[in-house]
């Protein structure tokens, strides 16, 4: 159990700076997701924590102690790698027991703890198989058991679910979260999948190009994104971002215009989430529109509609009465949830469009 902090930690490989100076604080027992597209430095952050990489500058602290010089083997960190990194020549039992070989654990204790860890992730029936004889999901459980068996202070998961199929991913998501809660371990999950981050983590660190874009709870990132990057990355189907020019309280976008709740000026980007829009028959009020595309998603249907301010995406329940493709329609906007960003892409707080 440990509290983690980064103080201006950065990492460069030669000339390329993969992680810009970064501050971070994670409470004891917290489960935090590092979210971002590939190449944004999220795995680097994880390996810096594990001690596999040494920071170029700054301090990594565990419980307030600087651990920069501490070897990976002495940090008592458990990692589940994206590839699982199981030892192919060892049985599952030997794989899970491997970390205990380097601690003073007697034989009986070792085999008892291996079985306990295997039980925890429900792979006790495969203990004598080799990793190659297991399915992807089972291998993943072995990797998790191996990371947990030494009762680490910190659990690090690098894209733990990316190699699993959709159904398995859902159940593993819940299972990992449950285990984490039960053991109360400080946990970091690296992922590029926003749903994974939203569902598993107490807080999300959203990263972009080697820097932190925003740190907050899933709801904060969704409702109050710091900038257009976070707004675009969180939410599925993604937010629609429309660029326009503001003059006073009027925001001109395309050939149309919206009214703002306060006056401003310059390039302004309007963000509208598909789930905050309603599609109805023309004449019911709202923005005149024409349905262009219809994408059934099962429970919901995603409509692409053409309006004066540009192409919008609207999410509707499958049963809703909605005009068919090609027909005129109207879009009602939940103005309270609209997001507005300045020329630099930063969100302007306390500014909305008027209904």
């Amino acid at each position, binding site marked *: 159990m440990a509290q983690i902090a980064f103080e201006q930690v950065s990492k460069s490989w030669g000339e390329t700076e993969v992680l810009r100076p970064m501050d971070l604080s994670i409470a004891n027992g917290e489960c935090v997701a590092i979210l971002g597209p590939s190449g944004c430095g999220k795995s680097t952050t994880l390996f810096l924590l594990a001690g*596999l990489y040494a920071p170029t500058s700054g301090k990594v602290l565990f419980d307030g102690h600087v651990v920069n010089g501490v070897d990976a083997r002495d*940090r008592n960190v458990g990692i589940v790698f*994206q590839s699982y*990194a199981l*030892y192919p020549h060892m049985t599952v039992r030997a794989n899970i027991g491997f970390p205990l070989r380097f601690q003073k654990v007697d034989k009986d204790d070792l085999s008892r703890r291996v079985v306990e860890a295997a039980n925890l992730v429900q792979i006790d029936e495969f203990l004598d198989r080799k990793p190659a004889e297991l399915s992807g999901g089972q291998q993943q459980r072995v990797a998790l058991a191996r990371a947990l068996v030494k009762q680490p202070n910190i659990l690090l998961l690098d894209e733990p679910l990316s190699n699993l199929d959709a159904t398995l991913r859902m159940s593993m998501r819940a299972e990992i979260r449950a285990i984490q809660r039960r053991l109360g371990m400080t946990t970091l999950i690296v992922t590029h999948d926003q749903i994974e981050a939203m569902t598993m983590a107490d807080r999300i660190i959203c990263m972009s190009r080697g820097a932190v874009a925003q740190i907050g709870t899933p709801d904060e990132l969704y409702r109050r994104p710091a900038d257009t990057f976070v707004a675009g990355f969180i939410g599925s189907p993604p937010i629609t971002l429309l660029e326009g020019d503001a003059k006073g309280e009027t925001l001109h976008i395309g050939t149309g215009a919206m009214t703002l709740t306060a006056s401003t000026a310059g390039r302004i980007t309007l963000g509208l989430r598909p789930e905050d829009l309603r599609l109805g028959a023309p004449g019911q009020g709202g923005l005149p529109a024409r349905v262009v595309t219809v994408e059934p998603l099962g429970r919901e249907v995603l409509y692409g509609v053409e309006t004066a301010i540009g192409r919008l995406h609207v999410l509707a329940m499958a049963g809703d009465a909605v005009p068919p493709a090609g027909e005129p329609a109207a879009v009602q906007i939940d103005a309270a949830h609209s997001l507005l960003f300045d020329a630099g892409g930063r969100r302007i707080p306390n500014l909305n469009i008027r209904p």
Partner: protein
Amino acid sequence: MAEQSSPDWMALARRGRRHRMIFLGTITVFLTLVSLPVVMPYLWLLTMSVTTLGSAAVMQVFWRAAGLVAVLYLALIVLPPLMPERFRTWVPAMAAAAAVILTTLFILPLTTLNNFRFLWNPDVMAAQQGRSSTIGELPSIWSAMGNSFALAGTQTALILITATPAAYALSRLAFRGRETLSRGILLLHAFPVMALTVAIFIQSYWMGLLNSILGVVLVLTTLELPFAILILKTFFDAVPWDIEMSAVTDGASRWQAFRLVVLPQVSGGLIAVGTFTFLRGWEEYVYVTTLLIDNSHMVMSLYLFWVSQDAMGADPNLIAATGVIYLLPVVALYVFAQKYLTQISFGGIKG
């Protein structure tokens, strides 16, 4: 669509079968013809080693053996793919049994083990019609074989001990000039070593390593090292970083991670490289004749050479028998290492 008659599927299927048969048949015949000149010398070597030149038995044994090989070849390799499933297990077994019986009945009675007398009588020529001979002074074949084993074994050990860390470093560690070093090693391997013979002789002389097995071992190790490093590097390249990093976070030291996790992954490569290096040392001739200048350190290749250099006329049967003995360890090693040798590859793709 209605006017178009449907194609004659039966006829097309017959044609497909015919094409497959022609394809397989052509390949089989071609490969068989190409292998004949390769197989014949070995058959001749075996025949000569168990007969006496000039006797009628030579040709009889040779043709009977050739016939036996042909029958076995047909029964074990050519016919099984063409046979119905249920014949495939017992036809080869019958063929093998028949071969043993036929050999015992028709070949063994014509053979002699006299040519292998050097195995128990070091003075090879004296036993034969009382001829005096230059190679009367030949050491026992066992000492030559012992020397060959020592040479090849030491060389293998040295290569594996040196090439493993070198290949690991080239594969894993990021240091200045790594690429240049890799390319340099490739160039070294391409360099014709014969060009170095004189220089190496002189250097060995100055270092006092002339006429010693150790000298030859050091020279061969140096020359073989680039190849061994290159092959081992491809094996290390195939081991993912992750599992080594995982071992380190699991509490292993770098050395423990290497020994417990990485090394077992490249064991196939170590066996393959070890086998090749051993065989290379076993068959070495150029540097042993150059550097072992008197008979006190006879190795197998020199022994074979001297047996064939008898001033009074060489005994072909004796040469053949020596050749067979020379071959046996090689065959044994190949049978053992076969599985690993096929894993060797360049550029990361396992063959």
